[in-house]
């Protein structure tokens, strides 16, 4: 028995009109992922839970903070989560103890028991692609990108953290991002240099 899978935007529209059922579906769809991003940034399950809960509570209270005109919902939600978690790290002056994600190569499955299996399958394939692209990078390039994104560090801070010249860090970020663009098939529409 297959039921149509509501899109994120349909669920969001429901939440805007106070549909509790839509919020439950949306929560179950994204809770693990939101929590996982917070764990990745904070490295602390209690703090990550606080951040993840806060993200969802705010979403229910103010669903208009997401503007569909400006992009898809999931990247927005995960970016909000990452930013809140990074703010939390900064406010606590925490230093993360692990900086490279450990999960490499683990094939993401269709989580048949989870709600929304069809949606999970789509997500799993997206996650696989991103993980593959990241793990294919030279470790120092991946490290620079992950320290920036998940560690919330500026290039200058990364250079200090790694005792590496700033120029080297900038190069690693640029080369790594260039490879990710290719691997993820993301290209700028215009290549004209002004």
């Amino acid at each position, binding site marked *: 028995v297959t039921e149509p899978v509501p899109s994120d935007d349909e669920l969001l529209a429901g939440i805007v009109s106070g549909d509790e059922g839509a919020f439950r579906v949306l929560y*179950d769809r994204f809770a693990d992922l939101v929590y996982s991003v917070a764990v990745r940034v904070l490295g602390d399950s209690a703090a990550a839970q606080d951040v993840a809960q806060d993200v969802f509570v705010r979403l229910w209270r103010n669903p208009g903070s997401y503007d569909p005109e400006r992009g898809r919902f999931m*990247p927005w939600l995960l970016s909000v989560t990452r930013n809140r978690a990074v703010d939390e790290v900064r406010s606590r002056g925490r230093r993360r*103890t692990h900086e490279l994600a450990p999960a490499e190569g683990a094939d993401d499955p269709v989580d048949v*028991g989870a709600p929304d299996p069809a949606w999970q399958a789509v997500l799993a394939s997206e996650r696989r692609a991103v*993980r593959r692209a*990241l793990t294919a990078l030279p470790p120092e390039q991946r490290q620079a990108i992950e320290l920036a994104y998940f560690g919330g560090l500026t290039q200058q801070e990364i250079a200090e953290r790694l005792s590496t010249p700033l120029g080297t860090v900038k190069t690693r970020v640029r080369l790594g991002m260039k490879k990710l663009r290719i691997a993820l098939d993301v290209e*700028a529409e215009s290549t004209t240099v*002004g």
Partner: protein
Amino acid sequence: MNCEEFRESADALALGALAPEEARQARNHLAACAACAADYEAASAVVERLPLSVPLVRTPAGMRAGVFAAIGVSPDAAARSEPAATARPGQPPVALPQRAPRTSRKRLFGARLVLPAIAAAVAVVAIAGMALWVSDLQGRIHKLEQQQAHNPAPPVASPAYESQAQHDAILLLSSPNTVSSRLWARPGNPSADGSIIWNPAKQRCVVLASKLQPLDPDHEYRILLSAGENHWDGGTLTADENGAAEADFSTDRWQLGVGYTVSIVDRPRAQGGTSQPVLEGTVQAPTQ
């Protein structure tokens, strides 16, 4: 900032890795330059996918209840409460090895007094979101409750759990700060499934697997553990005739704040053979 300088900084801007003053200059340029805007969008399209790379960690017990309590909405009537009803009937559980044939299921939780404890553990698990496992446990408990309702005679006294490892698993799951994670099938054995349950406070980890394929006599399943550059052996994993297996081991050398990869591999018993990964997953420890 000119176009060339912007393009040097576009990736860092998208990553949020520019110092505030640099970021301000870059944004000023961006607002006025359509060509650079396209370049920045490409960088942003990469960055927005980075969070998808994180190891998937199940939400902890209590988070769902916490969110719904905070917004004053009932957490019920949602998918999480439905797996027991919607789980495919007759399908073996994914995470919980199925040793006993269905007809002898009442032996699983034979003692009446055990029920509330298991129900409590199941509630914790339900919140933790291990839906398949929960649906199986809930199904078993529901069945047993029905049997008790129809047959007031107390069930035959028998071991409450199928195995020590499952007993440990339920105890670990019912205690706070447990980290649980799914073991995902690798291509060679796509139907296999499993779970890892780690309690950092108790320094115990339980691995449960199901639907492992039978092995040649000169092969065995082994648990391999790794964190960063460190690798070690977690011992053998012996599957029963249904392909179910379980093992538990001490994690007293595991450190907080570290992510551990747990793999189950098919390996020749003889030295020097090649390991085939069958299941793999990660557990991420809290930092404190």
